[in-house]
């Protein structure tokens, strides 16, 4: 009976672990562009390369590739940080909660357009080799709640925290 219990427990652990290992090919990119003199264009890429090894690549001034917009794997980096699977999964799961319905209705509120040097353009991508979803949002720190961008800002903050970058450098 005890053996059966142990076997069941092992099976349960195995099922759980296989459930969580589903982001093998998922890549998350966060690109931030500002008009400031320093750090005006920076990209953070989160991905898995070897089994159970997750990376966060940071690239300053990434080249804009207009020729081939389907170049989805943006993995060139100046700095690479190893992150835990847990942290990667947390961000992946938060990304799943973004809703097009609420984000689009928030987009119709034009009061986020600031005409000064504090403008921030954020491009957030969730991709795998067959498909990619991109969000391009302006000044997400501005009127966040009214524009339904709470989750979006939360993801940005978590990625910047993992990258040991200060959120306030980009968003005032």
């Amino acid at each position: 009976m005890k053996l059966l219990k142990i076997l069941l427990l092992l099976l349960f652990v195995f099922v759980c672990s296989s459930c969580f290992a589903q982001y093998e090919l998922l890549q998350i990119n966060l690109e931030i562009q500002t008009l400031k003199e320093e750090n005006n264009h920076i990209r953070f890429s989160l991905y898995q390369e070897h089994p159970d090894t997750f990376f966060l690549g940071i690239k300053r001034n990434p080249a804009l590739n207009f020729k081939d917009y389907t170049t989805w794997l943006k993995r060139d980096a100046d700095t690479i940080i190893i992150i835990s699977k847990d942290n990667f999964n947390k961000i992946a799961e938060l990304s799943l909660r973004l809703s097009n319905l609420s984000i689009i209705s928030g987009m119709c509120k034009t009061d986020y357009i600031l005409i000064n040097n504090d403008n921030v353009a954020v491009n957030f991508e969730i991709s795998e080799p067959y498909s990619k979803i991109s969000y391009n949002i302006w000044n997400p720190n501005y009127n966040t709640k009214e524009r339904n961008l709470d989750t979006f800002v939360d993801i940005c903050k978590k990625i910047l925290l993992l990258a040991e970058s200060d959120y306030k450098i980009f968003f005032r």
Partner: protein
Amino acid sequence: MKVLKILFLLLFLNSSCFAQQWSHYQAFFLIISGLKQNPNYTRIDLFVENDSAIVEIWTEPFPEYIDYMSFERPKADTSYFVSIEKFDKVYELFMALSIEQLINGMNLQKQDLTWDEPTKFRLKIKVISEYIILDVVEPSFNTQERNLEPFLDICKEIICLAKLNSKNFFGK
């Protein structure tokens, strides 16, 4: 009292007109490349201008920075008006699309790419200066498993508005 009622009515009418106006800040762009036919590229833009919906079609790609920098686009091959209701139908289809479902249908396990030059679909919804882009490779492959039926429905609706035959794009 009557005056008050009329005033309320006017206020209501005004606000409903305003709401209608807000809902037409969106524009749709469907870009299909890598088609196994001549021309192998089709771009369909759908937007509202002066209370009319406009369809524009290109069969020659133009540099992406034109879109990116909001420069004037080259002249379309074909351009005509369609009813606002048809535009609204595409918008409703887009709003009903669940990005969460799309992400759940993403292929996150390793699988070999079987196409040398796959057909790529890019559906972009732009609201003023913010946007969401869905990039999908070969959407007619494993459509159901990849939860791509709602995505295909939107593409078919736009292709139908462009008076093109969807069979040429989906190989069915």
